[in-house]
């Protein structure tokens, strides 16, 4: 089996778990680590529905149990122009999806994050423009790509709540917000799903959101990124690579597509 892991220097565990975005707990980078403890992840079940032969409600144990974990050390490129290298633990998304037996009408797969304002303070904010729950989606061939990964852990440990416990997506060639956290619903559908950031600002965040240095975010350049941890003495700029450096695995998915139009 090919090894998809990078040998770049990993971002320390402390930074991965204490500096990230999870707006369900606030918009600050420390808010997730501070407040995600309030989220209830046990028991946890995932509703699988739509165009598939095995819909139903699966407990997280059912989803996790019969499978062999792998470690994948992936680059994560945030749309905000910083990046990390994270060792995830999990399974190929394709293996999980196959168990639900999607049918021929399943052109897209849609994911949804838990909605629980009582335990997720960001969802209680009256000034938030996100229409909860947080939604994401992939085209079926993207979801079945060998790189798409469902993570249950990082750094050899169970996924911390702030990083999307108990189960989150990791799509390393797309901007980080596509890698939806704390998933409670998976739906196979024929039409392109609505996705949260695209709903808020369609001119800034497209459905595809592939990492692409040639297409700037309207408010900032995407040509470079700060590899974290950075420091004041060396900001650690690196050039952003198309598809976050995973072009060999995924470029064929977009053959013939104008990536400036389908950003």
């Amino acid at each position, binding site marked *: 089996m090919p090894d998809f892991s990078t040998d770049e220097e990993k971002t320390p565990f402390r930074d991965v778990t204490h500096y990230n975005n999870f707006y369900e707990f606030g*918009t600050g980078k420390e808010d997730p680590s501070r407040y995600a403890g309030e989220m209830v992840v046990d028991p946890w079940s995932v509703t699988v529905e739509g165009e598939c032969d095995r819909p139903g409600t699966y407990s997280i144990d059912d989803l996790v149990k019969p499978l062999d974990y792998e470690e994948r050390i992936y680059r994560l490129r945030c749309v905000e122009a910083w990046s990390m290298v994270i060792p995830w633990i999990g399974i190929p998304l394709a293996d999980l999806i196959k168990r639900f037996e999607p049918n021929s009408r399943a052109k897209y797969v849609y994911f949804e994050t838990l909605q629980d304002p009582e335990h997720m303070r960001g969802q209680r904010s009256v000034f938030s423009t996100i229409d909860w729950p947080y939604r994401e989606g992939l085209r079926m061939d993207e979801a079945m790509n060998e790189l798409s990964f469902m993570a249950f852990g990082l750094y050899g440990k169970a996924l911390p709540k702030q990083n999307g416990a108990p189960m989150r997506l990791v799509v390393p060639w797309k901007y980080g917000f596509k890698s939806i956290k704390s998933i409670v619903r998976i739906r196979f559908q024929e039409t392109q799903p609505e996705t949260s950031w695209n709903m808020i600002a369609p001119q800034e965040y497209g459905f595809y959101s592939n990492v692409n240095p040639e297409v700037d975010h309207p408010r900032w350049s995407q040509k470079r990124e700060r590899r974290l941890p950075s420091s*004041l003495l060396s900001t650690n700029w690196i050039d952003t690579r198309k598809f976050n450096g995973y072009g060999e695995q995924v470029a064929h998915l977009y053959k013939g597509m104008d990536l400036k139009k389908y950003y």
Partner: protein
Amino acid sequence: MPLFRLLVFAGALLPFALLVMDAFGGRLGPDPGERLTERLGLLAFQCLLVTLFMTPLSRWTGSPVWIRVRRMLGLFAFFYAVLHLLAFLQFVIGWEDLWVAFTKRPYIVFGTIALLLMCPLAITSTRGMMRRLGRSWKPLHRLIYPALVFAWLHFLWQARSDVGEMMAYAVIAIVLLVVRVYWFGWRTLVPLRRA
């Protein structure tokens, strides 16, 4: 009186000292440049608001002490805004694509306009310049109002999803502007015009 001024000076410099300590202590997180830039910008904006509090305070309390620290606070706002810009150039965009940044990105343009509006105020803040400018000093210094508005737009334009903090600052700014209109008429908000 000198003691009061000293206290205000120390109070306005304290956040900077804390920031420097955090920077040297490695307490700015894994992306310290971004954090530093953000905190300097917020400090500049807060100083601007505090500066604008001085006139209403002196009217409420009937004491002139507030007016005597107003210039110093305004200069602190300018100081933090300049550091904010430098930190932004160094840590956030790394001195690249400057032309695009300063012409095409509205939030950067707005922030730059706010800072440019503050420049003449900082330059003409000395006693000598006040004397030289005479009656036109006051209308010139009303540029602080558009500077505040542009700074706020600069702030708002960076919001991604939660605008609560910006709205809180907007309420404070609006109160500060409205009391002036109430006391002195809307013309006091118009810069560069003789009252």
